[in-house]
């Protein structure tokens, strides 16, 4: 079946089998391998993408259900001029170890900062509750999100 989506501002389409998840469509049909397959049951959050302003486990959403909607993946965070402030602070503060949880973490964090530019630590924890890091790096991830939030607020002010 033909599924058409807007991914990172670009109109993309693919002919996929009906059981295809959004994650599979992004990774295997559109070549966007940033979102990862970790558990395939919506527990680990490595597949997180933003669908119409909501962070979503793309392993649980059928591609057909995402048809016509606006998707942001990790590939859409940086622009041609610069890294996203979150990417900068994650790099500078060493918030990623093996990196496998990174794309999902960053997307959840972006979705949080888009709505709440200066979140408290409990708010950050809440926003990341669907993202697991097995290298136990949560402290630095939280620091990096706060850091990026401050950078974005002062740049916007």
């Amino acid at each position, binding site marked *: 079946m033909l599924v058409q989506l807007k991914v990172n501002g670009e109109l993309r389409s693919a002919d996929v089998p009906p059981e295809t998840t959004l994650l599979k469509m992004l990774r295997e049909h559109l070549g966007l391998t940033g979102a990862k397959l970790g558990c395939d049951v919506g527990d680990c959050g490595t597949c997180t993408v933003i669908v119409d302003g909501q962070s979503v486990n793309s392993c649980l959403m059928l591609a057909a259900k995402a048809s016509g909607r606006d998707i942001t993946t990790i590939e859409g965070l940086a622009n041609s001029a610069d890294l996203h402030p979150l*990417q900068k602070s994650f790099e500078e503060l060493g918030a990623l170890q093996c990196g496998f949880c990174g794309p999902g973490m960053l997307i959840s964090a972006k979705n949080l900062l888009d709505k709440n530019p200066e979140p408290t630590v409990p708010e950050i924890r809440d926003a990341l509750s669907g993202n697991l890091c097995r290298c136990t790096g949560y402290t630095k991830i939280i620091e990096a999100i706060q850091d990026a939030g401050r950078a974005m607020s002062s740049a916007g002010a």
Partner: protein
Amino acid sequence: MATTVKDVKKGAKNLTTDKDLTAPAVKPLTLPKDNPVIYPLTLPESEARRQTPAVGQRASRPDGRLHGLGQTKYIDDLTFPHMIFAKVLRSEHAHARIISIDTSEAEAMPGVLATLTGKEIPVNSFGPTLQDQPVLADSVVRHRGDGVAAVAAVTEQIAADALEKIKVEYEVLPAVFDSLEALKDEIKVHPPHSNIYTSKVIKKGDVEKALAASDHVFHRQFRTQMVEHVPLEPHSSVALWDGNGRVTIYTSLGRITLGREDVARTLGMAQSKIRLVGTIVGGNFGGKNEITNEPILALLSKKTGRPVKCTFTRGDEFISSTIRHPFIMDYTSGVNKEGKILARKIRLVLDGGAYCSWTGTTIGKGSILAPGPYNIDNLLVEAYAVYTNKTTTGAMRGFGAPQVCFAYESQMDDIAEKLGMDPLEIRLRNAFSEGSSSPTSQVLQSVAVRESLIQASERFGWKEWTQ
């Protein structure tokens, strides 16, 4: 007259001008500024590139930027033209004899290109210490995660559906799940061999005499559980068998040189014909230290002439990759009135699961570290690793060290409580110092246990906390 280098340089200077040596200015590539899909073209050099020497610097990871951009390529992110997908059928029983495996119905399915059973694997055994593990079980399954057959199909979905069409007939055998039961050898996992497949004894002084002379004797049994590594990246590999009879395997394996030895053994091929390509691993923690299905994919690629990928499901990850050894630890310690440990007698029973894997390293490290970082003149450590019909245990962060640490530190607390001593004081009184001798009589240097304990307790306010 011979031409010297100097002459050449002189001549060259006359022929070229400084302007010629300067590269023409490159006009920067212009792209719409808000194009969200293109990665940044120019960025300041990564911090990691300028960090040398590292001591005293705030370090950043060399791979941090690509991680953040989502550009790091893990194995499952790789695709190859005409790539197909494999799935492995796992045992239905903890312990059973395989009577027959019928793959014909699966093979007949549209989209299925090949199947594989253990009998087709040239040398169907591997392992980093003992080669006791089949790549695919061919005669007996020894735990629920043992693979019995594999399928390669054009999509993962078809491969998964095809697994359901494979008929395996089993004769169920009695199974043993408890490591103390397994010690009795009533049910053998690898007959005719004993379930005790490796052991270690460390002796120092006279433990019985010292226990008899102690003012207090403490005994307690400590147990730890199975732990799965749960790397966020499941095991994944892609095998490409080429027309020259060579195979390239892209794998999430952390130890590719050891892995190549195992692949060479199982395929009965020279190592020079096998290339293993490792990349950034999405979490290892010890669980990606040995091969899993690499030989299966190699043979399926040989059969089909196509690149074959297999990525573990989370279920595969839990039941068929290795886990941490559960320990049953009996600790007996003899202590005098002042809190000095005079003797310690330890028995460790390691639940090895169905196959050996990295048990050799685990039992060694676990035994040596079992008495703890304390000066104890009379020691006896006896450790046994036993087979059970459970998930194979192998390497995991610390190789047995965390299990014994839990036991000896718990016993230190028991001793402190009974003697009415500060738990910190009992540790300081017994801790290793410069020149102490380890349980295996290694003279230790650069020992900072006491200093570390004192500093740490001061920093987190141990005194205030215990008042």
